[in-house]
């Protein structure tokens, strides 16, 4: 199963992918919030489902991301009005968050193209 660089085992490839994902946590969360407001567990589940459950972003990483995003004004938090169980804290993306999301997606698309050509993927496909 060795495709590109020779020395990575399966576990190594997993760690590589998880690292890549983690590096984009903030953008991923912004993307999940683009359609509607969600609370922590919904965001976590959306990401888990989107990755097919293969890689998951740790919840602690997500909480850190929420705090950072709120501090930077990219999302706003508010408490829901659930009457039973714990009250949920919802997150809403701001205009600034949408702008940053769009910029990061553009940057990612450009980077992906560069890396694809650097790794010479066109030939191997």
């Amino acid at each position, binding site marked *: 199963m060795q495709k590109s660089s020779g020395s990575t085992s399966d576990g190594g490839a997993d760690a590589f992918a998880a690292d890549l994902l983690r590096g984009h946590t903030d953008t991923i969360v912004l993307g999940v919030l683009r359609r509607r407001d969600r609370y922590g567990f919904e965001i976590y589940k959306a990401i888990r489902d989107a990755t097919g459950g293969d890689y998951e972003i740790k919840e602690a990483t997500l909480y850190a991301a929420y705090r950072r995003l709120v501090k930077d004004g990219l999302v706003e938090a508010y408490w829901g009005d659930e009457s039973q169980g714990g009250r949920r804290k919802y997150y809403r993306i701001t205009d*600034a968050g949408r702008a940053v999301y769009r910029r990061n997606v553009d940057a990612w698309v450009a980077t992906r193209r560069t890396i694809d050509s650097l790794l010479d993927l066109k030939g191997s496909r």
Partner: protein
Amino acid sequence: MMSTSVHRLLDQAFAGLPATPDVLDLKEEIRANLLDRVAELTGGGVAPDEAARRAVDELGDVRTLVEDASGPTADAGSDGAARIAASAVELVARNRVPREPSYVAVVVLVSMVLAASVVGTVFAAVGLAHRDVGLGLPTGIALVAGAALGWVVGASLAQETTTNHPMPAGRSALFGVGWGLVLAGCLLAYVHLAGARHVWLAVDGLALVAGVVLLSYLAATSTNRKKQWALAEARRHVEAGNRFERDPAAAARFGIYTAVVWGLTGVSALIVGATIGWTWVWVPGVLGWAVFMLMLATMLFGAKHQDG
């Protein structure tokens, strides 16, 4: 049964951490999410206690989050106002977003159209009152004015600036429509009043109300557009700039000076009114206001050496 287990484990995870509002807030947020995760696990056939344990395990280390949260307040504050002002200039320079020349040119052009069409509407309305022109001309010009204002508002909001991210296209377009409706409604109402076409006032009122309702909706649902550096800068200003909070004696002095300044202003206003004439009463008022603002500026933001 299952929930008590989660609550206990959550308490353990947060044991020994300071009970600041920030930490408690985080704990409550995590609690709701944990309950959902436990419900999901038990729904899949996991035993309640095991589900609770697994949910808390998946959480990762809470402590790193809390240290992360209490970090930034420690190094903030205690900076001099002068240093902050200097670094603010530098920050603005680094983050500066120049205006697009084409945007500036078109806005200037459309603004001229706007000004001309507002004035034109008034003239056309006078013409209508004297039966020199029909209803069509002033109506057309007023609609041009509304469209011009709407375009300027929408295009400006959609621009990225040094401190703000651009507003999404749809939203800025709605803002433009709102302001356009308000202006067109007002101008058309003027035209119809001048031309004694009172039936049309209902339509004008409707446009005006629609515009105001739209703008109110947009204002109520507005979210942050400030850039990160601008937000951080504002926070630092709040922390370092408020001298009165750190120095109660300065606040007390400020209160006494304020009373003196406005007391003297009131007395001199009375004297001026009684001697020179009541039309000149505003002069002492303006002078007093200027002195007050100067005093506020020097006492709140200046005088670094007095802080020690």
